[in-house]
């Protein structure tokens, strides 16, 4: 094998490896800088969402040791006895709508917030948007039969109702413990 042939085999490997290592080093450096900021932000966002669905709650802790129903993701309990916050989902028009539902010890909803959804932009705003028409009727509700769907966004409304029903089911489960 001649020298030129050898270098044409080795050079690409060396160059690509060096570039990949250099880029990886840069990424590691930037990640070091941004990771703490991102983590702090995520914690703050999670805390803010909890307070939004349960304004009176403090010292939220995860409820563990329960076998959660399929569409319940997480249950959190307010340390001061203001109630429970359920993270549940229901099937809407464009996949699952994930919702946080706050329920007080009397079984009435204190607030809701949509975390993620795949509903059509614009059309679903009266249901999944923060402070929307649909969600304004929810505080104080103790049973899903009291909830009215929004016309024009029935599928999204049904997804929300399913998620809230899951939260009520989970509440019954928690109370049974």
């Amino acid at each position, binding site marked *: 094998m001649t020298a030129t042939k050898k270098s044409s085999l080795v050079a*690409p490997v060396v*160059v690509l490896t060096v*570039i990949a290592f250099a880029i990886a080093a840069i*990424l590691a450096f930037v990640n070091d*800088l941004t990771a703490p*900021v*991102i983590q702090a932000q995520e914690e703050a966002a999670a805390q803010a969402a909890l307070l939004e669905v349960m304004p009176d709650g403090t010292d939220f802790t995860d409820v563990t040791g329960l076998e959660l129903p399929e569409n319940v993701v997480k249950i959190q309990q307010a340390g001061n006895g203001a109630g429970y916050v359920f993270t549940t989902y229901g099937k809407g028009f464009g996949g699952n709508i994930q919702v946080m539902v706050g329920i007080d010890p009397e079984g009435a909803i204190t607030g809701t917030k949509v975390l993620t959804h795949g509903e059509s*932009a614009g059309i679903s705003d009266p249901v999944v948007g923060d402070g929307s028409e649909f969600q304004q009727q929810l505080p104080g509700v103790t049973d899903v039969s009291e909830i009215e769907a929004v016309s024009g966004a029935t599928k999204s409304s049904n997804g929300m109702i399913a998620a809230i029903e899951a939260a009520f089911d989970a509440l019954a489960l928690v109370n049974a413990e």
Partner: protein
Amino acid sequence: MKKECQKQSGLDILLRGIIKENPVLVLVLGTCPSMATSTSVSTAVGMGLAATMVLLCSNMLISLLRKVIPDTVRIPCYIVVIAGFVTVVQMLVQAYFKDLYDSLGVFLPLIVVNCIILGRAEMFASKNGVFHSALDGLGMGLGFTLTLTVMGTIREVLGSGSFAGHELPFFSEYNIPILSQSPGGFFVFGCLIALVAKLTHGRVKHEATGCGACPHRTVCGKLGKEA
């Protein structure tokens, strides 16, 4: 080809990305992010600037490395460089512009496969000096940002009756919701392509087929020779 490159002035390289060789409307690259992120002005501008940042950095680095990178592995090298810069931008946006990060969603990491960036690396940065490549990246990026902003303005004002999140008095009562959905995006996109074709009519000569019809013909080394 080399002589032609030297003749191109810096200003010409910078400006042609905006109308004459606009990456979205003339080269028809990067259509997918243009559709997806132009539903509102703020996401459109954010997407445009993030892509410009990546385009500028990757064009400069690839131009610097153009003599080092062997031909056989050039595409993997470009992708590694581009993906690296995209990830850097993504981490910075996530840390310091959380709202923008949430509204761009998956389209921010997808800048890696944005054809404008790989296209410019292959067509321009791998053949030209650092300074000209930087200008090319900046010009193309600004063209992309401008197009997205125009599309975003049209779609947000007429589709949702607001501008950058602020409700407008007349438009919020009489809006056309379909414009903020994907069919409306294609409609606006088509109208803008027609407009740019009209503006550049006569100055950019198009042949029906072959190399002459290719929007990249001015930078492609195979000009005039059918591939």
